């Protein structure tokens, strides 16, 4: 039996999903909470297998709740169930220790399946979250580049054309273009704009480009 705890500040949502999860023969909703403090207090003396957690929680907020609960129960699986689908929020949630992320746009049945998946060690993601994450690309994408490629990557990210880069680095235009292709393949960043976003996020541009 999977012991599930629900944390969402909207009572109507908690009630709806509590009823839905309790219909499942392999699940039991052991508690539900409307704010962060209540959740943290409950976990101080109780245990559950899965916590379904909304990020917009009154009090400490969802991310803080996630960190605290995970610190106390490292084995607890936390499934984020939130309205937020921005890459930044998703990334922050996983950094704080989330094991899965579903937006509230997901089908209710997906939540049930996600609870089962997470217990088996999976990392369930709703399609919109997966799309948002893919747009973020690998955090360390630029680390796969050689020093020369990295320099050219910074110039490309700053909006320099292949011709400009070739002139600046004393390369032929063809060689510069080959570097550009290699950089795209290694980083998965297809356009200049994506490179720019990645470079600004990682503070790779210093104005000298």
């Amino acid at each position, binding site marked *: 039996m999977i012991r599930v705890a629900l944390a969402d500040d*909207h009572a*109507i*949502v908690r*009630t*709806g*999903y509590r*009823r*839905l999860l309790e*219909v499942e023969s392999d699940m039991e909703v052991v508690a539900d909470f409307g704010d962060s403090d209540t959740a943290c207090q409950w976990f101080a003396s109780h245990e559950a297998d899965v916590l379904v957690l909304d990020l*917009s929680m009154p009090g400490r907020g969802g991310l803080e709740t996630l960190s605290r609960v995970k610190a106390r129960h490292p084995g607890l699986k936390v499934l984020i169930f939130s*309205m937020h*689908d921005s890459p930044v929020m998703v990334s922050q949630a996983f950094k704080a220790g989330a094991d899965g992320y579903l937006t*509230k*746009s997901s*089908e*209710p*049945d997906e939540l049930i399946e996600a609870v089962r998946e997470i217990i088996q060690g999976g990392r369930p993601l709703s399609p919109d979250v997966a799309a948002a994450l893919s747009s973020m690309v690998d955090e360390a994408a630029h680390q796969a580049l050689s020093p020369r490629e990295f320099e050219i990557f910074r110039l490309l*990210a*700053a*909006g320099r054309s292949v011709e400009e880069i070739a002139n600046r680095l004393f390369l032929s235009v063809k060689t510069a273009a080959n570097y550009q292709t290699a950089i795209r393949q290694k980083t998965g960043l297809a356009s*200049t*704009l994506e490179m*720019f*976003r990645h470079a*600004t996020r990682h503070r790779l*541009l210093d104005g000298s480009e």
Partner: protein
Amino acid sequence: MELSRLLVRRMALLLAACFLLWWALAAIETRRDLRREGQGAEEIARLVGELANLHGLPADRLEAQLSALREIHRSGSLQHLDFQVEVDQGRVLIPARIHSWPKDRELGRLHFQGQDGRRFEVSLLADPVGAREDARSDLAGALLAFLVLACAVLAGVHRISRQALDQADGQARRQSLQWQAREEARRMRIEVRLQEQLAQDVTALRAQLALLSRHMADKADPVQTALKEARSQCGRIQQGVTALLKDVRDPVCGEGREALAPLLHDVIESWQDRQGAPIHWALDVQPLNLSLPRETALMLYRMTQEACSNIVRHSAPRRARVAVRQAPDTAWVEWTVEDDGVGMEAIDEAIGRGTGLAALREGIWARGGELNIRPGEMQGGSAGLRLEARLPVTPVREEWS
């Protein structure tokens, strides 16, 4: 302060200033007239004295006496008076300024006898030339005063109306900015209500419908179908709410400068996701790492949202392009949105009819910028439409307040 009250107050001040100017000019003119009249009286007194010397004048002093009289005659200081001196049977020693004169102009004749028995006759004449010159001088003075006053009034009215218009302009800009700030606040309230209420209610409703579906799995087909459709409709409502949330959300997080390219990229991406029509979108931000003050970045974001929305709804283009440029060392940013769609036949009428473009134009104007709308220039498409705007990089809000 109301515009009419401001104008009346300033015009009253202007008229008071003009009156003072006229008063000063009149005082100067009066002093000049009094001085001239005084000089005239002195000259007449001198003339009378010199004429009296003719009586019993020795022959050897005649020329000296005549020289003194000629000097008085030449001086022109005799106000409205002329004279002629004759000796012995009409020989003219000092002629009047006019050769002949009507009887009525002669004021009188004086007779003197020299020591040698010669008889001098002096005719005193009214001088119309002097009177005419005085009248001309007065007229010229009045005309000059009128011109000075007229110029002062015109300059004053110009300045006052300019100031009043600038003030009214600033007030309208302030009101427009306040309206836009209220719009942003309203968007925020909508966002909160959408997220905190509607979206959560729909989420709960979907859970309840899912529960119902499980309980009614054995029910007849119409019930199953209705439930399935209800769940599907709820899903669509939730997608709509999510899209609306993205529309109304303030995308600029901090209070400092904001990188523009990612913001605009998000706008274009949202339209790419939303509409099924094959529009090829392009974004060109120069320089690519252009970052702007929060208010300007948010304004360009909203402008691009509005323009993209118009393109998708009304233009049916194959291609659309959003471009933002800030030339080095300039305080202006240039924004262009262009498509190759159906365009607009009567642009001004269209602006008057709809609210989108009019609000866009007003928003740009309120920030000290300007918007031009004209047919597109993209090759190969239809007429298309091109929106061009210039905005100051730094918000001008403080200048209007």
